[in-house]
């Protein structure tokens, strides 16, 4: 089996398993998995950036734009189905990145990280001071239907869960294909040696710009899905701690596979839920300790456990 076939098989199995679990899972678990997969989409974008050699501490910007664009489209355009709202959120975030990328694509390392953080904090500041968008309180977002199915119906009530799982599947598969394409292969090349990429006839800035737009689109998609799942959005989505959490998950899970961000996101949400329940005052300590352990013992992330086992078997 070729690696891309293997990924397709693995992802398809994961999708089927996720969908099959829907009727059995308790409500809190459905919610937890949905939110995790939505955040996993943002981390998937970070994976692409990290493979390009960039770490963004401002993905919350696109996450919030995706959510606010979906919410605004529901209010203003009277869109009632979830799918078009998600598409609007994705496109809005990608569009903003296409513009900001003109500047961001010139920077690397800490300057890139801080500039992306600065943009996200500007949006946070704007949202907090915009009464039309609910200021600090934000506003409620709701889709009446998912792919035409009523959200109150017997199948429709799993709509957000199913849609998020389907989006995660399509995005992971698409990114995997992209990373194996001629254009996608330039990401690690840019990370390793920009001079050589230019001397082979490709524009490093265009590669970085394109990857920024893709990553932002994924973050926007995650933001829109989060908005529809939670039913409420607020400026916290653009706050730097939200962006920091995405980087946290990316490091926790590793960049070894397009499935890793989703596994990492589910794991973090589980860890946080249990830590919060059993140690409500020191849950950050538990989460921080887990991070420390990963960095010390698994610098390539949790996914490296899986790769190592596969390597041993081969």
């Amino acid at each position, binding site marked *: 089996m070729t690696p891309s076939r293997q990924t397709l098989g693995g992802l398809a199995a994961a999708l089927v398993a996720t969908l099959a679990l829907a009727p059995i899972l308790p409500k809190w678990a459905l919610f937890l998995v949905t939110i995790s997969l939505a955040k996993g989409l943002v981390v998937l974008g970070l994976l692409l950036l990290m493979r390009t050699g960039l770490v963004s501490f401002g993905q919350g910007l696109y996450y919030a734009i995706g959510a606010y664009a979906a919410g605004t489209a529901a209010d203003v355009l009277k869109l009632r189905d979830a799918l078009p709202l998600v598409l609007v959120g994705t496109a809005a975030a990608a569009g903003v990145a296409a513009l900001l990328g003109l500047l961001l694509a010139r920077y690397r390392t800490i300057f890139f990280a801080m500039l992306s953080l600065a943009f996200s904090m500007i949006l946070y500041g704007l949202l907090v001071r915009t009464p039309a968008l609910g200021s600090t309180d934000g506003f409620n977002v709701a889709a009446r239907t998912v792919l035409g199915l009523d959200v109150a119906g017997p199948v429709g009530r799993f709509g957000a869960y199913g849609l998020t799982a389907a989006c995660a599947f399509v995005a992971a598969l698409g990114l995997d294909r992209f990373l194996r*394409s*001629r*254009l*996608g*292969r330039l990401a*690690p090349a840019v990370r*390793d040696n920009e001079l*050589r990429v*230019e*001397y082979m006839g490709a524009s490093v800035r265009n590669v970085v710009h394109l990857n920024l737009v893709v990553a932002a689109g994924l973050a926007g998609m995650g933001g829109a899905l989060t908005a529809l799942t939670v039913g409420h959005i607020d400026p916290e989505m653009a706050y730097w701690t939200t962006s920091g959490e995405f980087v946290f998950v990316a490091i926790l899970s590793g960049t070894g596979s397009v499935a890793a961000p989703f596994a990492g996101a589910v794991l973090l949400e589980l860890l946080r839920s249990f830590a919060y329940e059993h140690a409500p005052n020191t849950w950050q300590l538990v989460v921080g300790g887990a991070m420390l352990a990963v960095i010390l013992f698994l610098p390539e992330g949790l996914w490296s456990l899986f790769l190592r086992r596969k390597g041993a078997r081969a």
Partner: protein
Amino acid sequence: MSTILETAGLTKVFGAVTAASNISVALEEDSIVGLIGGNGAGKTTFLNLVTGYLAPTSGTVRFQGRDITGLAPRRITRLGICRSFQIPQVFDSLTTYENLLVGLGIVALGRKAFVGSALGDQEPEQVAEEMLERFRLREYRDAPASVLPEGVRKLLDIAMALAVKPKVLLLDEPTSGVSADEKFALMDLVLGAIRADRVTVLFVEHDMDIVRRYTQRIVAFYDGKVIADGAPAAVLADAGVRRFVVGDVTPDAAEGTC
């Protein structure tokens, strides 16, 4: 034969240092030319000027009759001039095969629409396999470039330059860092692989035996200037070249060699 690459009055000044002074050189299509000169003579500066890494203070570079002075390296690469590096510039985390594939993929991208070809590739993979064979890199196919021996990295660096299908190839000291007994084998391999594509080659070299054996013409630099240009035997016999480049040790010449 017609001229493919031509510089006229190429000059580069860094503050008080003149790294290139009024260099006028014309390369005939399909020829192999050696570029010699002591350290600091301006050889690498010349390559950097021709490929657009540095903008000249004055003078012009013409490629196939077109003025390419001041264009960015990637534009010049796309027109058909590529280079290898004295210190191999490879993608360390990628395998030998993937290193070649990146360059071949860029060429394939350039031919078709930018996004349309992002999916579905076939041809570059075959060419990469064929290049591994031609450059005898097969046994290193799946090894990351970071662990390759220096001589193999050197070879890969040159193969990557050739992967973008240049019409003119500039090699910056292809045999530096390669042990003396392997130099001829490396040059046989490299020039054999290159000549199959009928590429014009200019290579910078310090080993006079290599230059004498593989070139049809030699250009000698000293202190940013061309001091000799012609048939190998004539250039290597030139008094100035013997004194400043080859380094024949006569008491009054010793200071000029470094």
